[in-house]
């Protein structure tokens, strides 16, 4: 009897040890907990921590590898493709995953998808949520209509043939209609107790302070059921505060440590985890009439003036020098003929041909922000660029505006009075898919404020390439066109291409099992905490 009791105690102890994989505390760069109701705010970070944790999209990103670029994988849809009976190539059929339940126990069906799309796109629907719509609507510009075919089949019709639809759909997260009904059709109430289908559930949430997530043990993808007991998210926008929090043991993981803090962190035995990911740090050049950047010699000269190795020194190595608009080695990089490198002599020669010298410089104004998500270290980085450009005869005056104001100016476009006559804007880009990576910056009909072509660039050849990308449904053929598009980006020096971030995060040695995908989003399911 005593042995049996001892065995029971030991068994329960071992069971506890096996199940308890600890609590992970993460300091985010966001100033607040991202919107919890489905479509998150706070950019890529919001989607990373409050999007793909609590929710799923019909199509997810494969976040399991650190060594290869992420690709799309089935999420709540098991398969998708063009309707073979549709000659217009605008009808897509999505076969949904059976047996998936929301956290509240309700079933995931095609009706739920239609309900979620209405939530974003139909302002007269009961569940329409302006806050989520503001975040999600612009992500799916191709969608014209959608309908339930049967319980597990959905049809989406696009405005025109558009092969980039799956990338757009990967942004749209599915929240529970039943939960919204139960909570009195009130999105404020849903924010406190949201219900998705994702691997994590929101256990508690205090705005501006913390959010606690616990594993969804019934998650449909058994391989991705979180191993941790709990994950706590803390908004901590000030970089030194994040470093101090990590060093003092207040958190186990911080997003985006400052480069100058890296050595002190590694000296104190913290891990710095980095990886390439689809990000770039650019000056988006205005191409409106009168802009000096309409002269290709000046655009090329500026790109040849940047001392990217010097910038790497400034950032303690936490960057990948730009060789193009996309990171080197990217599958869409292609073979541009213009080499993006530091060559001040050639840059000065080009400027001389354009009529400018360091003594008689071109004077222009550029919009920058003192901080911002993805902006890295904007003040010193821009100052270095300013110095480099001064050396070849481009005198830059900065117009410094607050980050959210800069975003608004970016949305309004270079011709808007809010741009204050600036001919370039320092903006970092999410370049994860054909649309967000390449098309949206250069298509004529997407000139801001209709789209996010800030500089009002318009070129018939580039437009033709964009249309080809949208009309090419074979992945290999599409890749070949995207390579041509990127070659034109580089050969025409459409942007001031400076650097790519490496998605640095610092963490305690206790954090185990994290695989940093080459993606803005990450999978927290395999992580455990050492005792």
């Amino acid at each position: 009897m005593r042995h049996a009791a001892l065995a029971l105690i030991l068994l329960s102890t071992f069971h506890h040890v096996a199940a308890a994989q600890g609590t992970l505390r993460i300091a985010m760069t966001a100033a607040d907990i991202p919107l919890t109701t489905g479509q998150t705010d706070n950019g890529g970070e919001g989607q990373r921590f409050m999007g793909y944790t609590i929710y799923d999209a019909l199509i997810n990103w494969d976040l399991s590898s650190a060594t290869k670029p992420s690709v799309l994988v089935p999420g709540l849809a098991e398969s998708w493709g063009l309707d073979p009976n549709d000659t217009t190539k605008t009808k897509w059929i999505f076969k949904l995953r059976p047996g998936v339940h929301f956290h509240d126990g309700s079933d995931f069906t095609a009706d739920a998808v239609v309900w979620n799309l209405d939530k974003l796109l139909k302002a007269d629907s009961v569940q329409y949520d302006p806050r989520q719509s503001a975040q999600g609507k612009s992500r799916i510009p191709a969608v014209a209509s959608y309908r339930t075919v049967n319980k597990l089949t959905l049809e989406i019709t696009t405005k025109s043939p558009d092969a980039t639809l799956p990338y757009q759909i990967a942004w749209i997260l599915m929240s529970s209609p039943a939960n919204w009904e139960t909570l009195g059709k009130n999105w404020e109430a849903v924010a406190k107790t949201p219900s998705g289908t994702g691997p994590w559930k929101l256990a508690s949430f205090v705005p501006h302070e913390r959010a606690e997530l616990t594993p969804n043990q019934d998650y449909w993808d058994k391989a991705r059921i979180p191993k941790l007991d709990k994950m706590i998210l803390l908004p901590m926008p000030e970089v030194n505060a994040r470093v101090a929090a990590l060093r003092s043991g207040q958190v186990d993981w911080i997003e985006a440590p400052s480069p100058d803090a890296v050595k002190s962190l590694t000296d104190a035995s913290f891990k710095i985890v980095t990886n390439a990911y689809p990000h770039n740090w650019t000056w988006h050049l205005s191409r409106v009439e009168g802009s000096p950047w309409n002269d290709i010699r000046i655009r090329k000269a500026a790109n040849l003036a940047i001392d990217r190795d010097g910038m790497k020194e400034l950032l303690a190595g936490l960057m990948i020098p730009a060789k193009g608009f996309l990171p080197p080695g990217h599958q869409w990089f292609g073979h541009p003929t213009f080499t993006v490198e530091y060559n001040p002599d050639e840059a000065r020669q080009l400027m001389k041909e354009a009529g400018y010298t360091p003594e008689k410089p071109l004077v222009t104004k550029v919009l920058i922000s003192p901080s911002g998500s993805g902006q890295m270290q904007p003040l010193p980085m821009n100052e270095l660029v300013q110095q480099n450009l001064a050396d070849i005869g481009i005198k830059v005056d900065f117009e410094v505006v607050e980050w959210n104001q800069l975003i608004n100016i970016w949305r309004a476009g270079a011709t808007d009075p809010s741009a204050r006559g600036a001919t370039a804007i320092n903006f970092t880009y999410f370049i994860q898919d054909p649309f967000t990576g390449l098309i949206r910056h250069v298509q004529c009909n997407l000139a801001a404020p209709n789209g996010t072509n800030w500089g009002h660039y318009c070129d018939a050849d580039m437009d033709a390439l964009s249309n080809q990308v949208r009309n090419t449904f074979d992945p290999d053929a599409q890749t070949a066109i995207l390579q041509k598009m990127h070659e034109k980006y580089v050969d025409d020096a459409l942007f001031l291409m400076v650097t790519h971030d490496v998605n640095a995060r610092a963490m305690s040695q206790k954090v185990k099992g994290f695989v940093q995908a080459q993606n803005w989003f990450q999978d927290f399911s395999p992580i455990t905490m050492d005792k």
Partner: protein
Amino acid sequence: MADTITFGKVTAVPIAPVRGKGYWASVITRLVHDPVAMAALAVILTIVLAAIFAPYLGLADPYRGSILRRLRPIGFTGYPFGSDELGRDMLTRLIYGGRLSLVMGVTPVLLAFFVGSTTGIVAAYIGGWVNMVVMRVIDVFFAFPSVLLAIALSGALGAGIVNSIVSLTIVFIPQIARIAEAVTTQTRNRDFVEAARISGAGTLTIIRVHVLGNVLGPIFVYATSLISVSMILSSGLSFLGLGVKPPDPEWGLMLNTLRTAIYSQPLVAALPGAMIFMTSISFNLFSDGLRTAMEVRQ
């Protein structure tokens, strides 16, 4: 003894305790004998003179640096105060930085001194509903903390030196106007003002001759104490990106761009803050000394 009264005519003779030449001489004497105030003045003068004559001091270029020599420690060869995040000489940047920091610290106070004093003195002297309206409007500004008000105004006006000066001036006008109104209200009820009024002196004459001489001193002392606040606020605006634009050296902006170096070169990162602290406390101590020196009873 000085009053001469004749029937049918009132001869206005100065009867007010106007502080004459002897008063200011005694103020200066007291000030000169205040070692703390003199030390503070010496610090201020050193910083001001260094800033003015910076181009003649044989310093390095404040805008040029070598990225390979970034964040050198204090005392490094060729960099007595270290180098900043872009490898520029910190000593040079700190001295040149004094120019904009002082301009942004002193100018709003000077402007607010003129506008606020005029507003407060006129409101107090006229009194009645004019005083009430002016003071209630000023109360509205007092409802906002100065830092928030400065940030809000700068945010609305846009970043830049001129806009920062304008927003800080707006922040300080109510504070100075309130003091001016208070001291003027006390003065206008004094016997010598009443006597001047009875003697037939006009409003402007009374304000110019009898009121200003008695109220400007306290207002000036208060205004000098605001210089330190102004410097801290203007540095704060630059820190937030609402003041000076890169690459111009300014202590608040330097503090911002160096803040991430706090773990690698903490002493270098702290230098702009030390300059703000030293300058603002010097202005405060000098202001205290001036106030003490002016508390002279005749």
